[in-house]
């Protein structure tokens, strides 16, 4: 019974948070966004006291159910482990008790805390379990999702329906995909063979919650009177925390999955409060049929592929290929490079949610995988505040659309030698026309050949750094007007 509840809740939470990463339309952000915000590390970084207290209380009462239900990386490992257990009975009971590697856990925790305190964001991002899942979901699940969507979009177009529209499939930096792949492969091997090894040796969140769950009120307890020492519980425990010889359970590593309760055929394991007497009651369920369906739905889609080739009309256009700005541009709401660096755990949610595909993961080691804004042929649209509304850690603070429109994240810089009127004497004024704040005015100037032309002049006090000018600039391959980021954002 308890196990069934755990599986159902985990499946729902997992599906929800995965959907959050898959959805590129922004439709689910409003009602699924909380799933990201109740993750422990994001809650700590955003100083979300209510969530922190609630999670600690939850753990103090029930043990590490967080790891079994709320944490998407944990649930993903359970799914992989479930596949690893299929088949022969030998496979199903392949785990065994291991001694806690406390030193490793502590070292990892110390590294994590240090990396947060000293702002070594790349390390934080690598260790944070939620970020790891975010990278995996956005690198592997999302492309499948968008491919399927694009297939539907193609069909819809043929059918004259507007229900689906195609979107970009690979918006990621290769480095992030590589990191996600390494993480996924390592985790998959560990989970397939040994269940929750990662959670009980490396994961700093697991370590913190493990410390709390040592004192949890509800806990699985082995009833030595009923126990016939078959050791099945130990061999079925993916957390390797049941020492069946000594009838003890390491509660700091137990993720409260309730598997052992279901496994035990002698009613010798109970989940009960510290003070209560043993109580009977157990339930048998068809192991993880639901989990199978969830997984199958996700993995089965890999088989599908869609082509999103665009019909080409008159004259192909060279896309922009701009050099990165000297100071990186960070999304409105991130307040400053420092704030983003300190709070961002590189979960990729903002990047996934950016409808204009302006946000990309950074490949710079100093802020590895954190979002940066790249205005090649798109810009930060005035009506959008997606990234600020989804960020669970407070690295990007929520902003209204109006607030965003007055937040200066950078300023445009004109590069005369590339500018079309300067170069070939054509009259242009495209940047001035599309500037949402009226920061650009066209003034008298002289082209390279001495012709009188109008050239853009940027009032950097009015410029918010949205990149409209840069994205729409007709100069190729580099824009003649480009945004330089600000280390600290201002309000104009």
């Amino acid at each position: 019974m308890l196990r069934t509840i755990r599986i159902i809740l985990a499946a729902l939470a997992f599906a929800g948070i995965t959907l959050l990463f898959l959805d590129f339309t922004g439709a689910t952000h409003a009602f699924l966004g909380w799933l990201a915000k109740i993750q422990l590390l994001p809650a700590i970084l955003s100083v979300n006291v209510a969530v922190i207290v609630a999670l600690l209380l939850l753990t103090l009462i029930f043990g590490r159910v967080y790891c079994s239900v709320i944490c998407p990386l944990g649930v993903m490992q359970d799914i992989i482990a479930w596949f690893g257990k299929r088949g022969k009975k030998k496979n199903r009971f392949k785990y065994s008790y291991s001694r806690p590697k406390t030193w490793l856990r502590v070292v990892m925790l110390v590294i994590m805390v240090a990396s947060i305190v000293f702002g070594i964001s790349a390390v934080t991002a690598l260790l944070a379990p939620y970020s790891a899942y975010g990278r995996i979901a956005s690198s592997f699940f999302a492309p499948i999702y968008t491919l399927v969507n694009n297939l539907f979009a193609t069909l819809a177009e043929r059918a004259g329906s507007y229900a689906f529209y195609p979107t970009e499939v690979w918006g990621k930096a290769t480095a992030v995909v590589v990191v996600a792949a390494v993480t996924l492969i390592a985790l998959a091997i560990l989970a397939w063979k040994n269940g929750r090894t990662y959670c009980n040796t490396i994961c700093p969140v697991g370590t913190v919650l493990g410390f709390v769950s040592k004192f949890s009120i509800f806990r699985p307890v082995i009833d030595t009177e009923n126990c016939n020492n078959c050791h099945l519980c130990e061999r079925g425990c993916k957390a390797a925390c049941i020492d069946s010889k000594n009838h003890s359970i390491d509660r700091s590593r137990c993720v409260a999955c309730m598997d052992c309760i279901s496994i035990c055929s002698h009613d010798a394991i109970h989940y009960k409060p510290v003070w209560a007497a043993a109580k009977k009651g157990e339930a048998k369920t068809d192991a993880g049929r639901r989990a199978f369906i969830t997984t199958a739905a996700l993995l089965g889609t890999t088989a599908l592929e869609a082509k999103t080739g665009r019909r080409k009309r008159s004259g192909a256009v060279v896309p922009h290929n701009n050099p990165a700005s000297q100071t990186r541009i960070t999304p409105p709401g991130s307040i400053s490079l420092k704030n983003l660096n300190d709070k961002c755990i590189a979960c990729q949610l903002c990047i996934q949610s950016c409808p204009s595909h302006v946000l990309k993961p950074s490949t710079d080691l100093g802020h590895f995988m954190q979002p940066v804004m790249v205005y090649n042929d798109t810009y930060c649209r005035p009506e959008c505040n997606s990234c600020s509304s989804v960020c669970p850690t407070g690295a990007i603070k929520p902003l209204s659309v109006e607030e965003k429109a007055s937040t200066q994240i950078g300023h445009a810089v004109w590069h005369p030698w590339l500018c079309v009127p300067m170069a070939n004497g054509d009259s242009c004024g495209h940047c001035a026309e599309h500037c949402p704040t009226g920061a650009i005015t066209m003034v008298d100037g002289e082209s390279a050949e001495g012709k009188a032309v109008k050239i853009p002049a940027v009032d950097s006090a009015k410029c918010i750094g949205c990149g409209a000018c840069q994205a729409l600039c007709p100069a190729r391959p580099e824009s003649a007007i480009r945004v330089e980021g600000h280390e600290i954002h201002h309000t104009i």
Partner: protein
Amino acid sequence: MSKIDRRTFLKGLSLATAGAAMTAGGIKLTAAEEQAAGKMEMRTSNTGDQVSLLGYGCMRMPTVDGTRNGAVDMDAQHRLIDYAMEHGVNYYDTAPVYTGGKSEGIMGECLSRHPRDKYFIATKMSNAWGDHSFAAGKRMYQNSLGQLKTDHIDYYLLHSVGSSIESFNQRFLENGLLEFLLNEREAGHIRNLGWSFHGNRETFDYVVSLHDQYHWDFAQIQHNYLDWNHASGRNVNSSYLYNELASRDIPMTVMEPLRGGALANVPETVARKFKERKPADSIASWAFRFAGSHPKILSVLSGMTYLEHLQDNIATYSGFVPCTEEELEFLERIAKEMIEFPLIDCTACNYCVPCKYGIDIPGIFQHYNKCVREEQMPLSKADDNYRKLRRAFLVGYDRSVPALQQANHCIGCGDCTPKCPQNIDIPKEMRRIDAFVERLKQGKEL
């Protein structure tokens, strides 16, 4: 035995009438039917005149050779005026400058065949063009009386005020001309004194504010369902003009009810919408019904050069049915569509491409025209299907034109314009379409 019920019969009848009307070039009813339909709608002026809602604008007249500037065909002109008189039209608007200066004389001749108390003459102080002196103004006024063969003018207008306050002061105040005209009104030679307006709001407000001092008896404004809320740059929305004047109880005569003929000759999509609603009515009749629907309108002037137009208008205003609220809203939508979303005459000949900057000009125009033609334009957030149409427009736009080749990348270099055999101002249209797309994306009301 086949039975025809009343409904079926009437339906058949109305369709037959519609068919007949189409072939007759928009004439709705025969004279007899029109009599049966009702009498000419009359409006009461502040001085108690019973004025016909249809007024006769006497600028363009039938010519012998059919050209615009040819000699006036007096027989045809007599026929028109007599016919109008017969059918209750009693307001005749002329000016010293109309028809190359001949209008007043011709109208004097046409009107003097009828009893002087059966019609009202409106003419103007047209001193905007040339001499602003008192002597010239007085001469113009006296000449009007002589040309029109009368000793009094029923409606006298300061012609075309509104370009600027200075100009108004120069023309009428500084030279003492207005004082003279006020005295003439006092003496009964001018029965109603007013002005016609073309211009800016500031001058309008100024002239209206003089009402307390001079008491304007009426005013003449450009009023039609386009100008109501969508006046062109050089004019003021007639909703503003009308409400300002109505709130001071100044009745109005209307000029340009068809906005220079544009509302009689509308795009096919618009015409279809009118015909779907009232298959038997002419397109122009909608504009006349609109103009007459506002109660402070005294008379709607139409420059009728052909008998058919006169007959159609008489039919509209005999047994006049004002527009319902719903119809006014419908006309506002039509106006929006005509002003904001005219079809672009692109034939996709592709002469304009390749564009130096990669814009897919024909693709953009085709998508836009397709949405206009199929009535899939997201016009107003108030519409039930706005969200659906908005999505269809934007998704369809991305489908038919790659992002980098859309209108927002046009820098207006103008290289394409001379290549267009349809003379489309391509950069201007690109800007217009992009502005529309941008408003859609930002979810702003149009």
